[in-house]
C-alpha cells in the first residue's frame, strides 16, 4: 500500500494537504487511487490512534490487533460515512467503540475466571505495596523533584480514572481533540463535555493530593 507524496507531484495529497471532501472522493473512487488514499489516512492517524488504544488497553500487541480492526471497519464503513463529522473524528469514534468492546470482553473473561475461582481478582485487588506516600508537594526540598512527584501522582490518578469521566478526559486532554469533536464523538452536549471534563480533572487532583498526602487542604473540603 504505497502512496506518493504531495499534490504538486500529481499524486495523492498528504493528510495535511487534503481536505476531507477531497480525500473522501479518492477513498470512494476506483483502485489503486482509493487504496493509496487509505494508506495516507492510515499513515496520518496510526501512531496517534495506537497511542490512544494502548493507553486504554496496556498491551501493545492487543492494541495493534484492535487498531487493525478499526482500520478494516473504517474501510468497510467508508461507503456509509456521510461526512457530517471530520474523517479523523469518525475514525476516533470507531477506535473508541472498539476499545469499549475489548474492555467489555475482558470484563466478561475476568468474571468467567472469577467464577472458576482462579484467584486472579484477589491478586489484582491487593494493590501495589511499593507505592509510598509522598510528603506534601511544597515541603519537598527540591522543586523539580516535587513537580516530578506531582506528575507521577497525576499519571497514577489518570490511569485509575473510570467511566464516564475517563472517556471525555482522555479524548480531550490526552488525545487533544477539541471539545466539539469530543461532544460529537460521544454524542454529548458541549455542556456535558465541560461538566464531565471538569469532574474528571478535579477527581484526578483529589486522588493526586491523597497520594501526595495533602488531601486535608483540598479547597472543596474546606469550609469557606
Amino acid at each position, binding site marked *: 500500500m504505497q502512496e506518493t507524496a504531495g499534490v504538486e507531484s500529481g499524486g495523492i495529497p498528504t493528510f495535511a494537504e487534503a481536505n476531507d471532501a477531497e480525500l473522501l472522493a479518492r477513498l470512494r473512487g476506483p483502485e489503486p487511487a482509493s487504496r493509496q488514499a487509505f494508506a495516507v489516512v492510515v499513515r496520518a492517524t496510526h501512531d496517534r490512534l495506537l497511542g490512544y488504544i494502548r493507553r486504554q488497553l496496556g498491551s501493545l500487541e492487543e492494541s495493534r490487533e484492535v487498531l487493525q480492526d478499526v482500520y478494516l471497519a473504517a474501510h468497510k464503513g467508508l461507503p456509509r460515512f456521510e461526512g457530517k463529522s471530520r474523517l479523523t473524528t469518525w475514525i476516533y469514534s470507531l477506535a473508541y467503540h472498539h476499545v469499549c468492546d475489548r474492555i467489555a470482553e475482558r470484563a466478561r473473561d475476568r468474571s468467567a475466571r472469577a467464577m472458576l475461582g482462579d484467584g486472579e481478582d484477589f491478586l489484582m485487588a491487593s494493590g501495589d505495596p511499593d507505592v509510598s506516600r509522598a510528603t506534601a508537594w511544597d515541603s519537598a526540598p527540591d522543586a523539580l523533584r516535587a513537580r516530578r512527584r506531582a506528575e507521577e501522582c*497525576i499519571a497514577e490518578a489518570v490511569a485509575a480514572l473510570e467511566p464516564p469521566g475517563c472517556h471525555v478526559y482522555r479524548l480531550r486532554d490526552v488525545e487533544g481533540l477539541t471539545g466539539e469533536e469530543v461532544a460529537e464523538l460521544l454524542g454529548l452536549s458541549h455542556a456535558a463535555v465541560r461538566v464531565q471534563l471538569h469532574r474528571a*480533572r478535579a477527581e484526578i487532583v483529589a486522588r493526586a493530593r491523597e497520594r501526595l498526602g495533602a488531601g486535608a487542604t483540598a479547597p472543596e473540603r474546606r*469550609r469557606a
Partner: protein
Amino acid sequence: MNGLMARALYPCAHIPDLTYDYLEGRLPALTTLRFKAHLAMCEGCAEFVSLYTLAADPVRFLDETPPPSELVELTLSFLDKELDRERGTAERDSIGEP
C-alpha cells in the same frame, strides 16, 4: 491573616469551579484578578490549581513511548493483504465461483 484575606476575595469552595474557565481564558478580567489574588494568599488553592493545570495538560509527562516506526508499515502490509483477500472473495462471489 492571608487565608482570611484570600477568602474575603473568594471563598475557597469557589476556586475549583473557576479553575476550568481560568485555564480556558474565559474568566472576566476582574474575576481573574481576584482569582489570582486568592491563589497568592491561599496555599491550598494554589496547590489545587497547580495540580489541576498539570491534569489538564498531561501529555508532557504521561509515559509516551512512541511506537516503533516500522509498526505503521506492518499495519499497512496487514491491511493490504486483508483488503486483497476481501476483494478476491467479493470477485469470486460475483462470478458465482464456489
